[in-house]
C-alpha cells in the first residue's frame, strides 16, 4: 500500500544545538535505510512556509495568497512517499523518522480507485 508521510513540525520549538547539528545526518540515514528496504519511493524536505504561495480560483478568478494553506504553528516540513505492506509497517517506519522525536509524522494512505 502506498502512504504519504507528512513530516509535521512545530516551528516554535527550539531545537538544541546538538539536535540541529544532527538533524540532516539523521534524515539522510533514515532515507537511506528506507530506500534500501524498498519502502521509500520518493521524498524531500520543503522550504519554509513563508516561501509558500497558495492558489485559489473563485468565480473564474485566480486568487493568490502569500503563505501556507493553513496558518498554524505546526506545518508540513517535508514528505515521503512510501510503499509499505500495511499500516503496521508504515507506523514502524514513521516511528523511526528523526522528526517523530520532536514533531509528528502524519500517515496518509493514498487514494486508491
Amino acid at each position, binding site marked *: *500500500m502506498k502512504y504519504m508521510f507528512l513530516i509535521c513540525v512545530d516551528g516554535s520549538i527550539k531545537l538544541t544545538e546538538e539536535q540541529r547539528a544532527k538533524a540532516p545526518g539523521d534524515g539522510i540515514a533514515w532515507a537511506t535505510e528506507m530506500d534500501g528496504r524498498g519502502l521509500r519511493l520518493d521524498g524531500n524536505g520543503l522550504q519554509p512556509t513563508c516561501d509558500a504561495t497558495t492558489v485559489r480560483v473563485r468565480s473564474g478568478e485566480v486568487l493568490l495568497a502569500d503563505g501556507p494553506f493553513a496558518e498554524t504553528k505546526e506545518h508540513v516540513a517535508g514528505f515521503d512517499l512510501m510503499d509499505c*505492506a*500495511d499500516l503496521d509497517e508504515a507506523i514502524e517506519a514513521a516511528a523511526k523518522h528523526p522528526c517523530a522525536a520532536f514533531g509528528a509524522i502524519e500517515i496518509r494512505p493514498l487514494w486508491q480507485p
Partner: protein
Amino acid sequence: MSENVAPMSDAPAFDAPVSDAPEFDAPAFDAAVAEAFRAEWGKVVATLIGLTGDWDLAEECAQDAFAQAVRTWPRDGVPQRPGAWLTTVARNRALDRLRRRASESAKLAEAAVLAAAPTTTAQEISDDRLRLIFTCCHPALPLEAQVALTLRTLAGLTTAEIARAFLVTEPTMAKRLVRAKRKIRNAGIPYRVPPAHLLPERLSGALAVLYLLFNEGYAATAGSELIRRGLCARAIALAGALATLMPGEPEAMALLALMHLHNARRDSRLDASGDLITLEDQDRSRWDQAEIEAAVVLLDAVSGGVSSPGPYLVQAQIAACHATAPAAEKTDWDRIADLYLMLGRLVPSPVIELNRAVAVGMAQGPAAGLVIVDALTTSGALTGYYLLPATRADLQRRLGRNSEAAVSYQQALELAATGAERRYLARRLAEARR
C-alpha cells in the same frame, strides 16, 4: 461435510413456508439458535473476513446464515456441529454474492479463491478469531471505535444495542462503525495476529478494551441493568476466548479471573434503592461462591507459572483477597497493601496509591493511611477526584477527628458524580456531624 448442511440459499427449501414444517418445540429451537449465536457469531464473522477480506460482506453473510438457521433448524433439526453448518452456509452465501457482483474482474478472482478454498479447519477458525480481536483493537482506531467494533463483529451485538449501551443515538453508532471499517480497509490495518515484537503492546491494548467493556457493564452509571449484565457476560466470554486462544499469555487468563471475581459480587454492590454498598458492608452470602472458586482455581494456575506478574494478575490477586475473605474484618489487608505497592510499580498511578492508602489504613491503622493520603493531596495529582477527600474523611472519622471528617465529606460531596455516591457521602456527613 458429514452433517446436515443446507443447500445454497437459492434452493427451494430456503423459502419453504413455516406452516409446512412438521411440529416442533419452538422455544427449544429458539434457544438453540440463541446459544449458537452467542457461541458462533464471532467465529463465523472472523472466518468470513479471513476468506474475503470484506467486513461488511462477512457480517451480512453471517446474518443470512443465522436467519437461515431460524428457518431450517425447526424443520431439519439442529445440526451436530452448528458452527460448521453456519460457517458453510455463510461461505456459500458470500460466494453467491461475490458471483452476483462479479462484473469487476477483481471480485471474480475473489469468488474463485473462495470457491477453491478448502473447508475451514478448527485451527483456522481460531486463527481468524484472534486476527479479528487484534484488528478490532488496533491502536490506530479510536478507543470508542475499538470497543464498538469488538461488540459488533466479535460479540454480535446489533448497532442499536451498542448505541443503547453507550448512550449515543443509533445513527451516531452506525457512523462510528462504518468509519472504523472504512479506516481498516483504506489505511491498510492488517488482519493478523501481531508479530512477536508488537505482541506485548497490542495484547495489552486488546485486554484493556475487553476490561473497559466489562467495566462499562459492571460499574457504569448509565444503561439498564439488563444491558449492563449483557455487556459483562459478553466481556467475560470474549476474555475467555482470548485466554483459550493464547494459552501462553498469563495476562489474558488473569483478566478472565479478575472479571469473574468482580462479577461474582455484582448482586451485592447496590442496595434496593440503587445506592452503593461498600465492600465491608456487602452481604457476603450473596456472592457467587462457585464463580469465586472457579476464578481462584484459574488464578492459582496462572500465578504458579509466572515469575514477574503483570498488572491484571496483581489486580486479580487483590480481588481474590477480598472475595475469599470470610468476613470483612478477616480481610488480609497486609497482603492487599503489598499487592497495591507492586501494582503501583507496574503501572504508576495516583489512584492505585490511593487504594494502597486504604489498605495500609486497614492493615496498620488509619494514621498510617492518612500519611499516604496527605502526600497525595499535597501532590495535587488527584485534585477534583471525589474519592480522595472521601478516603481522607473515612480515615479521619476512624481516628475520631469528626469535625475534620465532616469538612472532608463535604468536599467529597461537592465532587461526586452519581446520585448513589452522593447519598452515601451525605449519610456519612450526617454521622460525622452528630
